[in-house]
């Protein structure tokens, strides 16, 4: 049943649109399609972005692994590398602060009427992604494969049982959110 849905391209195009619509709706309701909120997070004066992301991970982490346990979903986690994940992440971070949106929230901001997100952000993202595609043949066997990570998942890294890791991470994330509320940020 699920396999047939996964393989039906027309259904998947429609599902992509639907997932996007709900995602955009929730991003706007969460307040994170607002430039001021995102820059507030990066200046550590407004922790809304952290609260939205950690709540999503708290719910998704347990949901995903329960579904995986009963065989309804599979992991897509891949082995990364320092050259790809650290360097790419830092380049992204610089762009994140200059633009004040990320690739999802920039589209959400366009939906709320932000022209800087449309004419600056979305146009820039298309150009930047194109630069990467041009450079990819040079980067692929060079910097992108530099410093391959030894493990794929956190339980492998810590050499601990999956469910123990999940419980520890859930407790850590919830504790962090409680601390944020305690300090009133």
């Amino acid at each position, binding site marked *: 049943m699920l396999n047939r849905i996964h393989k039906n391209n027309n259904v998947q195009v429609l599902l992509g649109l639907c997932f996007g619509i709900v995602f955009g709706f929730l991003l706007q309701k969460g307040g994170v399609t607002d430039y001021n909120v995102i820059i507030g997070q990066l200046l550590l004066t407004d922790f809304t972005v952290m609260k939205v992301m950690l709540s999503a991970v708290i719910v998704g982490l347990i*949901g995903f692994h329960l579904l995986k346990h009963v065989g309804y979903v599979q992991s897509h986690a891949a082995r990364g590398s320092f050259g790809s994940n650290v360097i*790419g992440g830092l380049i992204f971070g610089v762009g994140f602060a*200059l633009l004040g949106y990320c690739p999802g*929230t920039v589209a959400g901001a366009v*939906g709320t009427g932000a022209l800087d997100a449309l004419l600056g952000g979305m146009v820039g993202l298309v150009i930047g992604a194109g630069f990467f595609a*041009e450079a990819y043949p040079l980067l692929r066997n060079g910097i992108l494969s530099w410093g391959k990570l030894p493990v794929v998942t956190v339980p492998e890294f810590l050499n601990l049982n999956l469910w123990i890791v999940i419980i520890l991470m859930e407790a850590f994330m919830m504790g962090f959110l409680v601390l944020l509320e305690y300090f009133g940020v």
Partner: protein
Amino acid sequence: MFEYLPQAIWSPYVAGAGIGVLICFAFLLSDRPLGCSTAFVKARGLIGKAINPARIEKNEYYREIIPQIDWAFMIIPGVIIGAFISSVMSGQFHIFWVPSLWGDTFGYNPLTRIIVALAGGILLGLGARWAGGCTSGHGISGSIQLSVASIITACCFFIGGIATAFLIFRVIAA
């Protein structure tokens, strides 16, 4: 339930929990992590195909991330529509060029803001593809799968972002 829909803003915990549930459904029904940056590569490839198809066909990256209207592409039009519906329902929708925090600090000249946003967008697109995902693909979907690479990437997004934001608003603006 329906009285919540037109509210301007929800608790970030409720919106976030909703996103967590949504991502579980994306894994279940589409067998994919929900991410947003792939769509921009596909858009670039589709524009390239309209201008010079041979050049796009030769590029290795577009053979891996095929420029076509598919699930990953449709996420972005969906997000625009979803945020539009949400902001119209709550009466927050308005057209503007310059966000207030930028405007109050560096002035409300649209051109200055667009140039900086464009530079930011280019680095964001380059960095997202370099790292293989964005705030949703790595930061949320990847963390949910307990991917070490995704958690490292998400930390680097914020390290780079916090350092640059402090440089812009606390050093340059001062």
